[in-house]
């Protein structure tokens, strides 16, 4: 079962996220468990695969909101980075950043069981 400590070990600083959930740990963890299944990851991957930077920006931006809300730092940081790059429609290879994101997602998924 997912715990706050496990999240801390992963690098998450859950304090703000918890506060936003009125310090209700169970509720917070329930929401965190929903993150790996968020359609945003798939949307981002697909859009980047199609070189559709507009759609990729929208997907990244939406994800950033959710991750920020829950203070999932290790995921939030690369997503924020890719969002800013996509905001300017920067022509570049997004693969390494995407991989980091997907890797962190996998770790979280593992924790969630």
């Amino acid at each position, binding site marked *: 079962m997912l715990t706050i400590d496990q999240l801390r070990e992963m690098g998450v600083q859950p304090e*703000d996220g918890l*506060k*936003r*959930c*009125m310090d*209700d740990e169970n*509720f917070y963890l329930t*929401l965190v468990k*929903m*993150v790996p299944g*968020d359609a*945003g990851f798939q949307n981002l991957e697909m859009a980047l695969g199609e070189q559709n930077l507009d759609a990729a920006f*929208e997907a990244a*931006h*939406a994800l*950033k*909101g*959710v*991750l*920020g*809300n*829950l*203070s999932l730092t290790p995921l939030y940081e690369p997503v924020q980075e890719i969002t800013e790059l996509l905001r300017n429609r920067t022509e570049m290879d997004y693969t390494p950043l995407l991989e980091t994101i997907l890797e962190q997602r996998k770790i979280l998924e593992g924790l969630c069981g």
Partner: protein
Amino acid sequence: MRTRFNRTLDIRRTILIADDEMINRQILIHKLGRFYDTIEAATGRETLEKIREHRADLSLIMLDLNMPDGTGYDVLREMQEDEEIKRIPVIVLTSEAQAEIESLQLGAVDFLEKGKDMPEVVVARVKRSIELAEDTMIIRSTEDDELTGLYNRKYFFEYAKLLRRSDPEQEMDAIAMNVERFHIVNEIYGRQFGDTVLIKLADIARKILNISGGLAARSEADTFFIYCRHLEDHELLQEIIREGLQGMEHAAKVRVRVGVYPKAPPEISLEDQFDRALSACHSIRNDLTRQIACYDEALHEEQMFEERLVGDFEQAVSEDQISVYFQPQFLIPQESQPILASAEALVRWDHPELGQLRPNRFVPTFERNGLISRLDHQVWRKAAQHMRAWKERYGMTYPISINISRIDLFDDELEDTLSGLIEEFGLDPSEYRLEITESAYAEDSRQLAEKIQRLKDRGFTIEMDDFGSGYSSLNALTELPLDVLKMDIKFARQLTGDQNSHKMISIIMEIAEWLSASTIAEGIETEEQLNVFRSLGCDLAQGYYFSKPLTAEEFEALFCRYLPKEGKAC
């Protein structure tokens, strides 16, 4: 016990949370669910559907900008165009500075930064936004006149002041508009029709605003105020009014009057500007030839003059400046010379600075402000005093008619006051005749008929003054116990060789006969006029042909000439 409604505690409000990310929605619901009922939407289209479905009880919308199937901007734009949902406050959920500006421009009231704002802040801002929106709504609902949707008087002046301050260089007009004898329109055609007229007038005001901008209000009853950029073309104004009433039932019976204070100087308070516009509007009361009057220097002076008269009234009474003149009335039998029969008591004001004032200079003013009643009492008493003196000197008096103003008829003590005077001066009520102007009869004929009957029961003779000036219906006449019809002065003035003018007089004679009332012709100035009235069977006549109004002493001298030989010597 609480005596005030606590808005925060007593109602559980509903909030719509629109975000395509379920996790974001859940966080907000978790925060706000303790205080509010929540509804969710995940796309732009769903958001609009939910807003429309719950429009009656939705207190706030929390709106994400990036949603599929219609963005938050699309939602804001749609809301702006729909009056029914425009009032619902929206807090935009965003993290972009540029988005915040655009959202505020599109009508959002506030924004929250996703993932940044803490629960206390979110809850407080939600609460505050709802309060502000509700306060605004409450204020708006008190701003408007319920019937017409225009501003009410109070808010009109507040906003007009702001408008003036925002552009002090702009030349503005203060316009007042009302309906001639609106209470009678209401009485004859019913209140519902009256309301229709008011709504039409509000539409007319709006059309004027379409042309010259500004603000409009229903100030009270049938009076509308319009504050707008200077309008040079008054024909256009008349056209708007004409078009506005076109097609309305009884449109011909509704006379709209307009008073304009053009280019009203900004140093004059708005309240005074509209008082002046209104006095211009009142200045064309009963004047069918004019629909629009402007406030100008002449009107200003007239108003100042009126104010002076009102101010001087107390002194006039205390220093005995009010005197009574007598306009002799003659019997005009067909086969013999006219014979003095009676007189009408007329008021004069011997003003120490303005000289002698005739009633047309001050009676209309006093009728408007109610002082007429005190003036009437003065005249009644003075007339009775003279009659008493003649009775003592000659053992008789001619009957004298005194004027009863409309306002006197609403005085519950009128009968007692008049009977008291008769008793005090030892007169007979048959000698003391009461003239009531025709326009008074149009007010509430039943109440009036009862009043007049009570006066008749006390023995007074009732004369209807200005008969034929246009207000009484034949129906009302049958209810009124009248003794004398006094024909309006216009019948003598308009008398020509034309048979039609004679015909009108004949008709009045027939009406009088049918009512068993006698008739008096007023304003007889020539022998020709006298002959016409005499030949048509009129009983009595008065006017300059016989005599101008006389002082009590002059009337007494005339009086003596007609006394029977065996009467006391003059």
